[in-house]
C-alpha cells in the first residue's frame, strides 16, 4: 500500500490552500485526490468577478483565483491525481479511491484533510407539487452548463431562491440572451449579497419577489410555466395571490449543503447546524488525524475565508504528522464553544487551550437579519467582549478572534458563548 504523510480529498480552493500550507510547514509527501478533470473546484464555473478582494486586494474571476493557487501548488511540486474519486476513508486513515488508470486503490495517510466542498440541495427536498417535466435545473448545474459546456439550458426563465448563485445566474442567462422573468424568494429578505442584487437584478430590471414561492409547475414533458404566490409569516402560500409566469426553465437556488458522505461513513461526529463534521481548534474532526476545511466543514460565501481556514487546517495537519502536538484527539481539557441566542452555529465547537495557536478565528452565522445589535462573547458568566454591528444577515459569515493569552488567563473556563445582544 502506498503511503503519504498527508492525503487531501478534493482539489478546490480549500484542498489547494491546505496543500500549499502543509508544504510550507515542512511536509514533503502530500497527495491531492480530485474527481473532476481539473483542479480548482467550483471556482472553475464561477466566471463572474469579485473573488479575492481580501487575499489579493484585486477583484478576480473564479478561474483566475483558482489559478493563483494551482500555480503555487504546481510550483511546490505537490502531487495530485485528477479524475479520481475517493470512495471510502477508514478511521485508521486508509483511503480507497478509483480512477481509470489505477483502478481501485488504497493509500495509507499520516493525516487526512477533508476538502470535498458542498453540493446543492436536491429539488426533491422542495415539495413542489405536480409533474417533474424537463427544464428544471439547479442554479449550479445551469452555471456549469453555460460557463463550462457552453450550452444554454433555456430561454424564458424563472428562478426560485435568491442566494448568490441564483442572482449570478439571473445576470448570466440575461447576457446570453435569455429573458429572466422573476426571482422568487421565500424569505422576506434575500440570502444574497447586496452587490449581487444591484448588479445582477436591478441592472437588468429583473424583479425580486420577496416572500414568494413556486406553488405550481405547468407542463408534462417540458416546463411551460410556473405559478408564484405570496407567503405569510409561516411560509404558507396566501390564497388569491397566485400569478402565472409562462417559461421554459425553472432554476432552483435553494441552498447548499456540505458534501459529507465520506465523513459520515468514517463515523465522524457531525454538527446538525452546519451539516459538516464537528471540529476542535485545530479543525480536526472527532477522528484522530482527520481534518476538515472549506465548504465541506460549513458553507462559505467568500472564498478568501475558505483559503484562510484551509491554510490553518494544513498547518495543523503538518503539526500532527510531525508529532509536535502534545495532546491527542479527544484528550486534554476542552472548552465548549456554543452558539447562544441569535447565533446559529460556531466553527470550531471546542477549544483545547494547550493546542491553540496564539490566536483562533471563530466563524459563525446569525439566524436572522439584525440591525443595530452587538455580538457579545461570554466566558462562562462573564462578558469579555462586545462589538457593535450596524447590520448582520444570515448570508454573511461573521467572525471573532480569541487569543491564547485571554483563554489561559481563565484556568477555570468551561464554556465560551457567542450571542447577539441589544445595545
Amino acid at each position, binding site marked *: 500500500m502506498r503511503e503519504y504523510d498527508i492525503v487531501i480529498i478534493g482539489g478546490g480552493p480549500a484542498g489547494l490552500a491546505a496543500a500549499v500550507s502543509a508544504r510550507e510547514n515542512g511536509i514533503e509527501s502530500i497527495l491531492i485526490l480530485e474527481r473532476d478533470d481539473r483542479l480548482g473546484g467550483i471556482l472553475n464555473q464561477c*466566471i*463572474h*468577478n469579485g473573488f479575492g478582494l481580501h487575499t489579493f486586494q484585486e477583484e478576480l474571476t473564479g*478561474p483566475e483565483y483558482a489559478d493563483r493557487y494551482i500555480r503555487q501548488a504546481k510550483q511546490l511540486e505537490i502531487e495530485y491525481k485528477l479524475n479520481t474519486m475517493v470512495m471510502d476513508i477508514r478511521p485508521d486513515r486508509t483511503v480507497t479511491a478509483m480512477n481509470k488508470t489505477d483502478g481501485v486503490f488504497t493509500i495509507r495517510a499520516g493525516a487526512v484533510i477533508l476538502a470535498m466542498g458542498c453540493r446543492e440541495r436536491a429539488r426533491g427536498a422542495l415539495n413542489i407539487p405536480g409533474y417533474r417535466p424537463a427544464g428544471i435545473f439547479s442554479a449550479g448545474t445551469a452555471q456549469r452548463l453555460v460557463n*463550462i459546456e*457552453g450550452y444554454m439550458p433555456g430561454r424564458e426563465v424563472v428562478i426560485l431562491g435568491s442566494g448568490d448563485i441564483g442572482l449570478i445566474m439571473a445576470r448570466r442567462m440575461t447576457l*446570453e440572451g435569455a429573458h429572466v422573468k422573476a426571482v422568487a424568494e421565500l424569505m422576506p429578505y434575500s440570502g444574497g449579497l447586496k452587490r449581487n442584487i*444591484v448588479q445582477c437584478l436591478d441592472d437588468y430590471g429583473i424583479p425580486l419577489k420577496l416572500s414568494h414561492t413556486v406553488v405550481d409547475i405547468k407542463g408534462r414533458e417540458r416546463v411551460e410555466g410556473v405559478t408564484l404566490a405570496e407567503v405569510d409569516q409561516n411560509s404558507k402560500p396566501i390564497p388569491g395571490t397566485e400569478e402565472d409566469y409562462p417559461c421554459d426553465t425553472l432554476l432552483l437556488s435553494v441552498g447548499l449543503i456540505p458534501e459529507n458522505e465520506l465523513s459520515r461513513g468514517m463515523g465522524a461526529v457531525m454538527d446538525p447546524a452546519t451539516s459538516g463534521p464537528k471540529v476542535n481548534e485545530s479543525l480536526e474532526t472527532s477522528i484522530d488525524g482527520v481534518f476538515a476545511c472549506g465548504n465541506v466543514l460549513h458553507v462559505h460565501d467568500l472564498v478568501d475565508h475558505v483559503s484562510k481556514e484551509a491554510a490553518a487546517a494544513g498547518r495543523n495537519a503538518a503539526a500532527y504528522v510531525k508529532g509536535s502536538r502534545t495532546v491527542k484527539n479527544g484528550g486534554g481539557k476542552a472548552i465548549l464553544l456554543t452558539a447562544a441566542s441569535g447565533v446559529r452555529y460556531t466553527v470550531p465547537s471546542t477549544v483545547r487551550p494547550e493546542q491553540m495557536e496564539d490566536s483562533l478565528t471563530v466563524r459563525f452565522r446569525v439566524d436572522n437579519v439584525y440591525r443595530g445589535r452587538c455580538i457579545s462573547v461570554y466566558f462562562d458568566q462573564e462578558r469579555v467582549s462586545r462589538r457593535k454591528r450596524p447590520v448582520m*444577515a444570515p448570508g454573511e459569515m461573521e467572525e471573532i478572534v480569541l487569543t491564547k493569552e485571554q483563554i489561559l488567563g481563565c484556568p477555570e473556563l468551561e464554556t465560551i458563548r457567542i450571542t447577539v445582544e441589544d445595545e
Partner: protein
Amino acid sequence: METKNLTCINCPMGCSITVELDKDKIISVTGNTCKRGEDYARKEVTDPTRIVTTTVRVTGGRSAVVPVKTRQDIPKEKIFDCVRELKNVQVKAPIRIGDVIAADIAQTGVDVVAAGSVEECAAAAGSIEE
C-alpha cells in the same frame, strides 16, 4: 427635477440613497450613512460602469468555451454591445490567462482578456484522457 433611488453596495448596510438631479447636475444626495455611499451614488448616477464577464467559443480545445472579462470596467450601457460582439468571436486553443481575446471592445477602448486557460485538444476530436 428628477430623483433617482439606488442601493449602496459598499457594505452590508445597503443604505437606500436618493439623488436629486437637475438635468445632469446633482442637487443633493441623501440617505447614505457614510461618505462612501455618496461617492458611489455620484458615480452611479453620472458614470455607471461595470466589469463584464462572459464566455467565448473555443476551437480545438479541451473546453468548448473560455471565460473572459473586460480588463477594466466599461460604461454600463455598453454591456450588451460588448457581449454581442463577443458572440461573434471564436478563439483557437491553447489560450492562457491574460491573452487578449478582443481589443477595444464596443469602442470603449478596453480590451477583453482571457480569465481562464484552455489547453489544446490532443486529437482534434474524440475523448481526452488525463
